[in-house]
C-alpha cells in the first residue's frame, strides 16, 4: 500500500505531461461550431451579379451545397480559388458568401457593390470561378449568425438547408477527402429520402 502511494505523484505527473503534450498537437482554431445540425439562419442578401435580386435560404435548398465565406482582401481565399474551381468542374455546387470588411466612414471610405462586382470579375477571370453565385453580406449579418470568425470558412449544407459541417481555413487537396466523404454521404442519403 505504501509503495503504491509512493508512485502516485509520478503517475499524476506523467498524466499531466501527456495531457499538456496532446495540447501541442491540437488546433487552437478548432473549437467546434454551435450551428451543426441547425438550419441555415434566415437571410435576404443581394446577389453580386444582380444586386437587385435578393438571395434567401430557399435558393440554397434542394441540393447539397458548399457555402464558402471569402473576400478579395483575404490571401488564403484567393489561393483557394483554384482548387475550388476544380471541385466545381467535378460537379460540386459552391455558393460564395462575400465577406465585406468594415469600411471606415471617417476616412471617406464607402462600400460600392458595382465596384466590387468588377473587382471580383477580374479576380475570378484570373484565378478561376468556383461560384454558382455570390451573396454579398455588407453588414456581415449572415456571417455573424453563422458564427464565422474570419475567412476562408466553408459550410456544408444539405438539401434541406441544414448545416452539416463547418470548416475553418482553406479547402485544399489534403483536407478535401474528409469533407468529400460527408458531401457524398449527404448526396446519397438525401436521394434515398422521398
Amino acid at each position, binding site marked *: 500500500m505504501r509503495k503504491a502511494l509512493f508512485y502516485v505523484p509520478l503517475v499524476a505527473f506523467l498524466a499531466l505531461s501527456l495531457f499538456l503534450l496532446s495540447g501541442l498537437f491540437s488546433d*487552437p482554431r478548432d*473549437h*467546434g*461550431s*454551435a*450551428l451543426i445540425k441547425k438550419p441555415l439562419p434566415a437571410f435576404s442578401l443581394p446577389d453580386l451579379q444582380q444586386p437587385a435580386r435578393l438571395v434567401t435560404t430557399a435558393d440554397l435548398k434542394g441540393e447539397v451545397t458548399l457555402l464558402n465565406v471569402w473576400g478579395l482582401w483575404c490571401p488564403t481565399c484567393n489561393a483557394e480559388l483554384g482548387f475550388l474551381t476544380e471541385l466545381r468542374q467535378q460537379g460540386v455546387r459552391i455558393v460564395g458568401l462575400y465577406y465585406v*470588411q*468594415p469600411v471606415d466612414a471617417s476616412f471617406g471610405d464607402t462600400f460600392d457593390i458595382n465596384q466590387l462586382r468588377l473587382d471580383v470579375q477580374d479576380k475570378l477571370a484570373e484565378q478561376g470561378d468556383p461560384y454558382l453565385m455570390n451573396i454579398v453580406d455588407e453588414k*456581415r449579418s449572415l456571417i*455573424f*449568425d*453563422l*458564427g*464565422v*470568425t*474570419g475567412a476562408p470558412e466553408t459550410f456544408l449544407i444539405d438539401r434541406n438547408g441544414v448545416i452539416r459541417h463547418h470548416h475553418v481555413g482553406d479547402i485544399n487537396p489534403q483536407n478535401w477527402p474528409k469533407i468529400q466523404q460527408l458531401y457524398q454521404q449527404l448526396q446519397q442519403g438525401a436521394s434515398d429520402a422521398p
Partner: protein
Amino acid sequence: MRLKLLCLPALLLMLQAGATEDLLQFESAEQQQLYRQLTAELRCPKCQNQNIADSNAVVAVDMRNKTLELVRQGQSHDEVIDYMKQRYGDFVHYQPPFQLSTVWLWLLPLLAVLTLGFTVFRRSKASLTPAGDDSAEPEDLSDVAAQLQAMIDEASAKARHKPEE
C-alpha cells in the same frame, strides 16, 4: 514651425486615445456597466486568449457592436450571452457551462484538495501517536547501534594492527 509639426502626430494620438469609449451613448449607468461586463466576459473567437473588449479583430468589433445593440434593447446579461453562444458556441464565454465534458474542471481541484488534506491529516496523526514512534524507533536505533558497534570493532581492530607495521 518644425517643432510644431513634430508635435502634431503626438497630439493626434492623444485625441484618439481619449475618444474611444466616450463615443458610446448609454441610457443608464447600469447599461454601461453591463456593456463593460459583457465585453470583458465574452471571448474573441478569432484571437487566442483575448476578450472582445481587448481585441480589434473584425469579429470582435462586430461582437462589441452587437452587444451594444442588445444592451440598448434592454436585454439582460444572460440573454446576451445566450445570443452569442447560439452563434459562436460555448467557447465564446469565459465561464464554461457545467456539463459532463467539463465536470472535471470542478471535480479535479476538489479531488486534489481532498487527497492532499487526507494525506496531511494521516501524517500529522501518525507523528502525534507516541505508540507509533516508540515501536518504530527502537528497531531503527538498535539497527544503528549494531552498525556503530561493527564500525567501532573494525576501527579498533585496525588500531591494534597498526603499531605492529
